[in-house]
């Protein structure tokens, strides 16, 4: 057995992990919070992506959206991460072995890299395109990649529950 497999199995044998897995209400409650967090985090992030694509809120400067709305997005993101980690903690071996979970993790890494590239490149030059509805190509690419990655993450996430067996 590899080290990672042993580690996952060890986590899954923790009393708190077993309690979470077998709970009648806590697990569904965490899952519900995960879905509500999705609306707060991804709903607002999607609006930013649409703004970058020139499709929504064209009158709103991109920097204003980032300054005024992104704090809410980060709050939603924190909720997603905490609830997501708890769901994983409840059954690490089964999640890790689920192909849709694996797809989701790969897409999450892709979405993270895309956001990092956006903020360290074209967003550095925000002053030159902040108020224009027609955004630079690099910003449109970032918005498009983000939309596709997150759509894939949501779909793969939903599929995890249908692929347990």
């Amino acid at each position, binding site marked *: 057995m590899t080290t990672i497999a042993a580690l996952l199995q060890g986590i899954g044998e923790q009393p708190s992990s077993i309690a979470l897995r077998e709970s009648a209400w806590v697990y*569904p409650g965490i*899952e*519900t919070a995960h*879905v*509500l967090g*999705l*609306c*707060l985090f*991804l*709903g*607002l*992030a*999607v*609006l930013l992506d*649409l703004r970058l694509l020139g499709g*929504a*809120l*064209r*009158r*709103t400067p991109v920097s*204003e*959206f980032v300054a*005024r*709305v992104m704090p*809410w997005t980060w709050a939603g993101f924190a909720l997603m991460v905490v609830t997501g980690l708890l769901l994983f903690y409840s059954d690490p071996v089964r999640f890790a072995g689920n192909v849709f979970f694996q797809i989701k993790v790969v897409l999450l890494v892709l979405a993270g890299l895309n956001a990092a590239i956006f903020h360290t490149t074209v967003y550095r030059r925000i002053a030159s395109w902040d108020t224009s509805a027609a955004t630079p190509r690099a910003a449109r690419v970032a918005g498009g990649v983000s939309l596709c990655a*997150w*759509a894939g993450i*949501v*779909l793969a996430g*939903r*599929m995890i529950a*249908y692929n347990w067996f």
Partner: protein
Amino acid sequence: MSLLPFFTWCHNTALSAAIRDSLWLFPVIEGVHLLALTLLGGAVLIVDLRLLGLGLRRHSVAALAGDVRPWLRIAITAIVVTGVLLFMSQARRYYDNPPFTAKMIAFAAVLLFTTTVKARAVRGDAPSGNTHQRIVGAISILLWTTVGLAGRSIGFY
């Protein structure tokens, strides 16, 4: 009058059977339902936060509501179409499902609220930053959250 014959009829259509008998159709439609929920969440929240005096405060409520309205319409259309398909495929099961009933009541309530009270509060000539607008924003968020909570519970019941 009982709605059971209607639920049974829905359950027995060829469309329902096709979704029910497919291994992947229900999960995929459910996934698209979630994607539409995400877009809906964003389009609703940006206006409700503004009504609460948060978020994009430099824009008028009316301007923001107008800017996101096309996306709100797309989201609601997608969510209703996928929702009807999900319902059709398991209609008999949802007849005895209290969370489903609660969701439909909350959904009807939020649509009514949005097209009446909230529509007036986001009009161009509506005074902004007052207590009335804050209450409208809070009620809208609460109603939509109820729809989401009840919706997620359907599968647990």
